[in-house]
């Protein structure tokens, strides 16, 4: 290594990337969120070929690549398939104060799970396999936060 390199003041430049985005929700999820916003219901769609039911709904079955036009209403309940209690904070990324709980809920009436917040249970009491239900937000805007969280069915 050339000598001059050792003598140089080491500069670390603090920079940012701040570009806002406007994401197109598209036909399938616009319908999903439209129903969620207007009717406070969670729907799914079914593959005409393998009959798997997907939530969130998709344009095409991920296995058969068939268009899925049959929509089914879900009861909003499900089984907590897995969870994590988040302890280490990441300000600016996590929308909740730690500790909070994420879970994947295998939705009744569907063959897939939804990821969401789990509330109404102490972090040291939560466990896989419990029955949970969706709590819909009072103010709904047509996005995933129209579901406030899932909580145990008592």
């Amino acid at each position: 290594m050339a000598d001059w390199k050792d003598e140089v003041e080491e500069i670390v430049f603090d920079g940012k990337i701040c570009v806002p985005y406007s994401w197109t929700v598209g036909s399938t999820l616009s319908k999903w969120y439209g129903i969620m916003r207007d009717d406070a219901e969670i729907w799914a769609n079914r593959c005409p070929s393998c009959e798997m039911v997907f939530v969130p709904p998709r344009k095409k079955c991920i296995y058969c690549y068939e268009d899925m036009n049959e929509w089914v209403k879900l009861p909003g309940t499900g089984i907590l398939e897995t969870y994590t209690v988040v302890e280490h904070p990441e300000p600016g990324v996590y929308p909740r104060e730690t500790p909070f709980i994420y879970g994947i809920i295998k939705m009744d009436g569907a063959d897939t799970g939804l990821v969401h917040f789990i509330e109404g249970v102490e972090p040291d009491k939560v466990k896989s396999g419990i029955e949970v239900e969706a709590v819909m937000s009072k103010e709904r805007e047509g996005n995933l936060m129209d579901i406030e969280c899932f909580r145990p069915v008592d």
Partner: protein
Amino acid sequence: MGLYTDHRKVTHTPDGYELLTHESGHLEYDFGWHQGPYWSKYLVEMRDNARFMGIKCPKCERVFNPPRAVCGKCFVEMNEWVELSDEGELQGFTIVRFPYIDPNTGELMKVPYTAIWVTLDGSDVRMMHFSNETDEKDIEVGMRVRAVWADEPRPTSIHACQYFETIK
């Protein structure tokens, strides 16, 4: 202008649901970019000594500004620093009149501003910087320009040089 009118614009799905967009709002991704020895020295020289330093390829002898470790053409490491003049030739310019989002801030840029390409005397390549002229009448390729340095304390960035002015 009708140029960018989209004739396929639809607002609802065939079964009548409103087509939505999700807005990110202000996003910020923070970086702490290590500048490495070459760019560190370049920035420090601008800040402390109000001068541009280029780097010379030991093989093809071209002088690069901004400096970098490797001459791409010769694929050799460069270590010979060369002080460049404050003055040079304007090689190209763009007067930006349509504001767009500044990725540094997420806010719209202030326009007009003039981005220039300038080859400093003693260098073989162009660097990007600013001109204080914002009228096409006052700026043309081939003009001689001179760096106008910021008052001390100068920032550790290319803004240590405020802009290039036309040598009249």
